[in-house]
């Protein structure tokens, strides 16, 4: 009888077609983003202001048209994917590191420390974090790494709670007592003995975090506080469509980048849900 996370993953995804499809689409998107220069038909930042070059509808030369500065949208979407996905992954990594460390310490030590740490989390959770994100992004004018740091630093609370809850119950298990009896340090118990037990939960959570991060980054860039020119992401490509006239004249400039965000986020969500079904049948809603 085989077992292990990878085996469960394989078996479940064999059955769960939707999650498997989501995974395949995600791989295709990664592939396109990584090899953006190969698939791009035009220079994504090349501006052509001639009247017959701007706001072109989809044609053979420009698969999905050109924007208000005559840039090829298909090529921009390929390169924009890089920033969007990169910010998503970086944010996820930062969120997981902060959240897991915070939750692990809080859950493992328990007692007064846990109470105070969770009080702080509750307070942060009662604040719409987009306010803090907008302030930081508006004042710092960060590059994509900065944006990932800002979003990561304001969205780790739920991860921390999740990990803390697991640690609270896990630390009562016998293997932890055994480890303590052997005189292992708290640090070793947390990272070597306890952490591997929650890795499935963390990976599921991480997948969903990427989805959220991609959404938040695109919203931020849409509002004009995110990625600044000459860098661009899917979200900032929609930014100019805020003007009704522009939306009316060239709806495709808003439609396709938004569709890309939607599909990517949807796939991450489906994939994450597939992982949950595979690894944590208890969490399933019947």
């Amino acid at each position: 009888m085989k077992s292990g996370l990878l085996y469960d993953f394989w078996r479940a995804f064999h059955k769960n077609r939707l999650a498997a499809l989501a995974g395949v689409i995600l791989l295709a998107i990664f592939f396109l983003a990584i090899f953006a220069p190969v698939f791009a038909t035009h220079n994504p930042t090349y501006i052509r202001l001639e009247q017959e070059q701007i706001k072109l509808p989809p044609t053979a030369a420009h698969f999905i048209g050109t924007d208000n500065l005559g840039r090829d949208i298909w090529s921009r979407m390929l390169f924009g994917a890089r920033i969007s996905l990169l910010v998503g992954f970086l944010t996820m990594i930062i969120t997981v590191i902060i959240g897991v460390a915070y939750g692990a310490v809080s859950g493992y030590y328990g007692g007064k420390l846990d109470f105070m740490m969770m009080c702080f989390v509750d307070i942060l959770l009662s604040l719409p974090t987009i306010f803090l994100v907008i302030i930081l992004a508006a004042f710092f004018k960060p590059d994509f790494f900065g944006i990932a740091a800002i979003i990561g630093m304001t969205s780790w609370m739920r991860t921390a709670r999740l990990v803390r809850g697991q640690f609270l119950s896990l630390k009562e298990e016998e293997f932890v007592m055994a480890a303590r009896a052997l005189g292992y340090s708290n640090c070793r118990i947390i990272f070597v003995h306890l952490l591997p037990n929650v890795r499935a939960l963390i990976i599921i959570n991480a997948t969903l975090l990427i989805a959220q991060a991609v959404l938040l980054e695109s919203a931020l860039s849409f509002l004009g506080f995110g990625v600044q020119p000459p860098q661009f992401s899917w979200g900032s490509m929609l930014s100019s469509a805020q003007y009704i006239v522009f939306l009316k004249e060239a709806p495709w400039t808003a439609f396709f980048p938004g569709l890309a965000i939607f599909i990517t986020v949807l796939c991450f969500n489906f994939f994450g849900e597939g992982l949950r079904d595979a690894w944590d049948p208890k969490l399933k809603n019947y």
Partner: protein
Amino acid sequence: MGNRYLRRLATLFFSLFVISLLSFALIEFSPGGAMARYVENPNISQADRTRMAERFGLDRPAPLRYFIWLRNTVQGDLGTSFMTGRPVLTEILERLPATLKLMTFSFFISIIVAIPIGIYSATHRHSLFDHLAATGSFLGLSLPSFWFGLLMIYIFAIWLNWLPSGGMITPWFDPSAYPLLIRPFVIFWEHTRYLLMPAIVLSLSNIGSWSRYMRSSMLDVISQNYIQTARANGVPERKVVYKHALRNALTPLVTLMGLDLPGFFAGAVVTEQIFAWPGMGRLFISAAGNRDYQVLMGIIMITAVLVLLGNLLADLMYRFLDPRVNYEG
């Protein structure tokens, strides 16, 4: 019991204090400072900026300014906007009703759509509808609200020309131009047609998560003994679901609604921007761009107060719906 609410209230004020300290520090340690937006203006010299900073009291050390801010805020004075020179509280109170109007309308849309979907999914588990609802809620949670908003504007405002693309009311709208008999309907439609698109966009993610939550909470309740007993006693299924189960299934949802409030405010920021809705979120965005510190602090604090009061309300509702809950201890 009174003791418990006293403690809740103390926690509320402590939370507000921490939030104010945190936001103040965040704004304070950000690079540039309040006068940074004038740096690139050639008509404003360094001397002008120094004078302006002095006039605003910005030359004093940050901790002192925090205490001044705190003292004034406790007395109900949130300071003066750097941009307009008007009291921050006035500016916010002008905008707050619009935001609350949008959120209330959207809240009711979410409830009216999410709860029946959740109930039906739970009572018809694994039916086609259940699967569609599950997929639909995923779509709702994954849709970028600004993109969905733009699509709606394109379809309903530009293409079909049914609804206005933005704003809250037609400036020259005059109800007295209509006959008395239909006037209420005209007024109602005038408000609704502006509200409809932004409210739907704002309720989207709520519908997604609340309907799923309602489903699983309903399933939890239905599997309990007292429901089986009711069924065994021959109570009709409709009555079992709507009379016996619903109330208990709703209680966890109330808590979730309270927890979702911050997300609701966050969604309002984006939605207001798309639909040019003259609410607090748009005020925040322009204040962030202009480095209007006082307005930013004011909006954060007002929002925090509303969210914390909302949570308190959810707590009270929970007790009302489920009298078993006893917090002694």
